[in-house]
């Protein structure tokens, strides 16, 4: 891999129907590193991710995957660079979990999409990594939201891209599975050198797992840097409009207003 970054944006402007929502988005994801977007609800974290993935038309600027401009890549090229795990609920009909994960091998199979033995091995590896191998024969619709989320992660992993994008991956997960999911991501990043870009709500988790944090608020990126620089009261209070002293970004401790007596 010659390029320094598996994913990079330069002065990217995102928005809907050509109207700019967030300007000057500069993100750099290195192989083997985790970059996390944090910020209040509706700040546009999803909009940034969807624009990078090409699901939304960008308003301006540029996106590079392994150093190559997005526009120059075919849909197939992109699928080898970037796989996604979205936050929208998926409805399937009569598909087993293995069927859903297998779709991750799409870029590697022939015209009819029949999986080879090697493809099946990869599916198995991915499902075992996320601890869902036991669910393989179950109907996808019969699973809990948390289980489905893990199936979709296995799907994204077995696509074997250079970068994995996750939009709110911990939605629907209880704390046990949130921690497990982030452990899987860390394992993935360290063993396979995959780059990860994701959005997260849980600040303590973001602080633990990320190599780099990007704060999104209003019409711009208000701050970015390593977690130890971002998770200071000054930055976090500003980002989430908190009263000073009500939240400790390092311990995750919160202070509520005293009740009127």
């Amino acid at each position, binding site marked *: 891999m010659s390029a320094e970054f598996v994913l990079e944006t330069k002065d990217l402007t995102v928005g809907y129907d050509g109207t700019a929502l967030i300007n000057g988005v500069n993100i750099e994801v290195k192989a083997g590193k985790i970059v996390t977007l944090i910020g209040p609800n509706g700040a546009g974290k999803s909009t940034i991710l969807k624009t990078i993935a090409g699901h939304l038309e960008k308003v301006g600027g540029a996106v590079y995957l392994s150093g190559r401009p997005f526009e120059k890549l075919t849909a197939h090229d992109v699928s080898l660079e970037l796989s996604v795990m979205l936050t929208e609920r998926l409805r399937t009909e009569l598909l087993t979990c293995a069927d859903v994960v297998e779709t991750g091998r799409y870029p590697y199979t022939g*015209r009819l999409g029949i999986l080879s033995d090697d493809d099946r091995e990869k599916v198995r590896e991915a499902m075992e990594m996320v601890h869902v191998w036991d669910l393989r024969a179950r109907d996808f619709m019969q699973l809990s939201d948390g289980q489905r989320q893990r199936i979709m992660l296995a799907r994204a992993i077995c696509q074997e891209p250079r970068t994995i994008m996750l939009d709110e991956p911990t939605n629907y997960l209880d704390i046990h599975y949130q921690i497990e999911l982030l452990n899987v991501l860390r394992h993935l990043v360290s063993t396979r050198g995959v780059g990860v870009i994701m959005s997260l709500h849980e600040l303590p988790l973001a602080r633990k797992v990320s190599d780099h944090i990007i704060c999104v608020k209003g019409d711009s990126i208000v701050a970015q840097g390593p977690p130890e620089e971002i998770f200071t009261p000054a930055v976090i209070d500003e980002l989430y409009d908190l009263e000073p002293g009500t939240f400790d970004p390092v311990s995750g401790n919160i202070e509520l207003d005293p009740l009127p007596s």
Partner: protein
Amino acid sequence: MQRQDQIDDDFGQGVRRARVTGVFIGLAVLLVVFAVANLCIGSLTVPLQDLGAILTGHDTESTYYQVIWNIRLPRLIAAGLLGGALALAGFLLQTFFNNPIAGPYILGISSGAKLVVALMMIVVVGNAGVMTSGMLILAAFVGSMIAMIFVLLVSRRINSMSMLIVAGVMIGYICSAATDFLITFASDANIVNLKNWSLGSFSGINWSDIGLMTVVVLASSGAVFLLSKPMGAFQLGEQYARSMGVNIRLFRIALILLSSLLAACVTAFAGPISFVGIAVPHLVKRFLATSKPLVVVPAAFLGGGIFCLFCDLIARSVFAPTEVSISAVTAIFGAPVVIAILLHRQKRVEQ
């Protein structure tokens, strides 16, 4: 080989493969049974033991031979091919709109085709011309594309499954009403046929129609089969499909063109036929216990053919010598399936 078995086992492929094989064997048997029944049963009953000789070209002088070769065999082939085409058109539309009760009839696409074909027949036949099969298919294709464009425009503006269906049904009504006007005012004797056709019927199909019909239906069905892979990706939604490398624009255009062409071909020769496009793919998926297009596409094609052979047999034999319109029969067997789908979905939502 051992490794293969091991992997198959791990994925539950052994069980699944057995089930799929079983379904295809069942479909093949049904196809033969209904084909033979369609050839033998009718106002003139052809004895089963004579059938072999007739089909292999012996015994050419008998009345049986004339009935089989001139009437029943072309009708059988048409019902089989067009039934398969309808089922595939339905499956494509269900995939496209992500709506289990989408189909060419319910979305008004068959009626659009009907309107333009009727218009063209009246113009051409009124000027003492002759409609060729090619002209029929072309007119039907234009009509189905016009209706399809309307449905697409509606689906862009509203994002509700049931409203899409309502809009389709309305388009269907408008087109059918317009066709009725045309038929009423066109009192030419040549147009008497139009009335039967506009209700849906496999009668009167002859060998000259079969050639082009076979080419168009088999070519489009082959193309649909080759789309199995992107259709499988599209089942997870447009965004996932895109991230797997599907060229969404091209894929959508292909789905629209193929479903319109298949529906048009059916309407051109047999008029609008209801419910096959919804009921058959649904039943086939239940039997296969999967919705993977790679197996659903061929099974739906066979299933659609069988369903139409069965319905045509009933349409022409139950009230013989009077023939019931094919659409009436397919509705009786198809509509309950649609109701079952709706009830099933409702139950799932409540859970």
